[in-house]
């Protein structure tokens, strides 16, 4: 399914944030679960301010790759370099502190909390007041609360979810929950944003909206985006470069045009007789 995206953004040669040096480098990553080879010797890099997609058929190791990047899984082999610094023993809290935020394939929001509170939760790392300061509403806690709320309101406006600000997340339709999750990730003001199938299960209209938000995030905040997506059309429309995985191996890497004409990729997607 090919989702059209506003041409005004795509056709522009001039970007607000020019694509820079590699911000994230993955070198010879291999990940095994017992005898199962989830990822085998995959290397690629992500340039600052670009939108990088990881695609591949089911079970290709896309989500595993994302989990390696933010430290949920530790690969048996290979290295991760973030902003020129080799990170050994990556784990989720460290990833968050480094400025890597993510969303999940199966939405992982606080279901009973309002949209506002969920996004406020994303500001956790930007809060320095300790428990007692917050409990007694001391000046620093109050100042930070105000600052955080301002930042969150900006995101709410950005994502056009003013009307559900106070609604508990569990009462929202799927497409909006996905948007709230994006909001929470943005609240951390990340350098790199990992999106795990941001458009899975959406209808065309919701997909178009999501595409626009991803492009806008990249354009407005300069956030580097790494996204996993099933929908080839979407990926080709919004990504700068694409990595293609199949059975845990990298079978293609390059601009959407290059990837589209890559015979290995075509075979993996359309299937060939083995």
């Amino acid at each position, binding site marked *: 399914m090919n989702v059209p995206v506003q041409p005004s953004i795509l056709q522009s040669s001039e970007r*607000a944030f020019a694509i820079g040096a590699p911000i994230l480098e993955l070198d010879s990553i291999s990940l095994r679960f017992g005898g199962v080879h989830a990822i085998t010797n995959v290397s690629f890099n992500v340039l600052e301010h670009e939108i990088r997609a990881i695609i591949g058929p089911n079970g290709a190791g896309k989500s595993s790759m994302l989990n390696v990047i933010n430290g949920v899984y530790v690969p048996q082999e290979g290295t991760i370099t973030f902003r020129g610094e080799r990170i050994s023993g990556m784990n989720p809290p460290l990833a968050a502190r480094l400025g890597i935020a993510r969303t999940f394939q199966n939405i992982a929001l606080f279901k009973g909390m309002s949209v506002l509170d969920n996004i406020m939760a994303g500001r956790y790392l930007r809060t320095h007041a300790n428990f007692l300061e917050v409990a007694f509403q001391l000046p620093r806690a109050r100042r930070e609360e105000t600052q955080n709320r301002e930042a969150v309101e900006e995101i709410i406006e950005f994502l056009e979810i003013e009307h559900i600000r106070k609604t508990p997340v569990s009462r929202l339709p799927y497409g909006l929950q996905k948007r709230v999750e994006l909001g929470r990730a943005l609240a951390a003001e990340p350098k790199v944003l990992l999106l795990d199938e941001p458009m899975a299960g959406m209808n065309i209209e919701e997909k178009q909206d999501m595409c626009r938000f991803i492009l806008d995030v990249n354009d407005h905040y300069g956030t580097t985006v790494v996204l996993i997506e099933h929908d080839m059309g979407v990926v080709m429309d919004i990504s700068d470069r694409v990595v293609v995985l199949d059975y845990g191996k990298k079978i293609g890497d390059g601009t959407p045009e290059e990837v589209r004409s890559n015979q290995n990729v075509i075979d993996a997607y359309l299937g060939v007789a083995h």
Partner: protein
Amino acid sequence: MAIDNAADTLPKLLLQHLKERGDRPALREKSRGIWRTVTWRGLADEAAALAAALSERGLQRGAHVALIGDNRPRLYAAMSAVQWLGGVAVPLYQDATPDELVAPIQRAEITYVFAENQEQVDKILSILPQCPTVRCIVYDKDRGMRHYKQPQLVSYDTLLQQGKELLASKQGLLQAEAARGNGQDAAFLFFTSGTAGPAKGVVLTYASMIDRARVAAAVEGLSDAEVAMAYLPPGWIGQNLFAYVQPMVVGYCICCPESSDTMLADMREMGPSYFLATPRVLESLLTQVSMRLEDAGGLNLAMYERGMAAARRSRARTAAGGSGSIGDRLIAKVCNLLIYGPLRDVLGMSKLKVAYTAGDAIEPELLMLYRTLGINLKQLYGSTETGFFVAIPGNGDVKADSVGRAAQGVELKFTPQREILVRSPGLFKEYYGDPEGTQQAKSAEGWFHTGDVGYLGDDGHLRIVDRMKNVGALNDGTLYAPRLIENKLKLFPYIKEVISFGDKRDNVCTLIDIDFAATGRWADKRAISYTGHADLASRDEVYELIADCIAKVNAELAQNPALAKSQIHRFAILQKELSPDEGLLTRTGKLRRAVIAERFKPLVDALYSGRTEASIDLGHGASVNMKISNAKVSAATPARRAA
């Protein structure tokens, strides 16, 4: 009133407010969760700066400037700036498609455009080749605008900044320009909603707009302490009078909600004292209330139903000439405390002094329902050409089926076909660039042909029947006015829109557009599964539900000898919401009957041929089958109780 009548234009009025109430709020806008206030001084300063910058860019007296966007303080500041320099403001509907914008921009020879955001700019840019007169596009929100390099574009912020720098050197010019304007200058150019044919550009002067605003303010005793919500399309004259001209005359404060989706919550926060709505808005508010009450169920629902029934009974008795017993009055007091009061609060209407409905005919039952809740809702009559305020019901003189007496200064006359003719100081100046059309609509003695059929009752109240072109006759000669029947059906929460056919037919048949939210909820409760609007609309259960609603309306119609023949015989449910984007509705939500009849011709033919199914071509070679169902028709009975 404190307002000096020498101020005969809006810019002069603005300057007066600056002097008299500079620090009072003129506008409030909810932005990023907080209400932000613009004082009269703030508004005047911003308008002055913009005017300085615009004059530097060559905006001339009499230039037509389009404004396209939501209700925002900046929209109103821009409008003030344009008028300050003697320009004519041309507010357009912000949700119009690019194609729909071409004609107004071409016809009005627009030179400058104020566009709210990227979406609006994209629309204007896409039609720029067809609109060579457009020289400059000012955009407000810069999101997504970084990549635009068109020479016509300039941001509102840049313009404002330039204006502030120029202000000192332009002070004399601005003062002279404000003083140069007079009441007979064209102030606005509105495009009619265009239920039939292309929209016409209606030119209104300061004198007529200010006069009408003053008359209405006097009827309601409005003061500068009023608070009103600005949420209807600025392209509609009603919204404009209400949220721009009248505040300029009276000095009250306008609140712009965060977005149309947050309107209800925002309204509750601000508690307006003065409110304008269309029947459509009032219907959807009521649908929301009944949906929520159904969810609440149990005691709440029972109390609501009892309370409304009690109110209906006492109303019937008062209408019959009784004065209401002590028991009735006691019940009303209790209901007010337990039911009406909390409901008013939920609707954000607890501080309302007066609410108007206008723009289309309202079903009397709906009007009375709001009045039962203790909301002073009144139906106005007026149109773009007549300066909106033609008839206003006086307080304490409101009748369910009338639009009240002619407002001060208005003369009414009727043609033999009962068309309403209006002569009033509020009449439009001309249709822009269409002297022939102007002549046809407005006679040499100044009578305007409204195109509405109506009559003056013995009580001096004006009653509107329908648009002249809608009123027809069944084949047996019975008078047929579709809106009456349709409005009765629209009272059911499950029905959003109805279009009925009957002119030159044997009987009345209708197409029904269901309210997806309300009907969907109804289906959820009964565990009826559906995949979407089209699926839900074609379910047999939904057909039965709608047939029930129609049977009830038919029973009601049967009691009125004049309407008994207009009972609905057959109907079909549309599988997709009627939408202005497909040209089936106008931007204010009125039916475009001719277009709908053409689009669903096979279905309408099938309605009258006795078939139970019809196929509608969706374009692109696709088609959809739609079911048709019979409705229960009641035998005509004489009215049981005296009305």
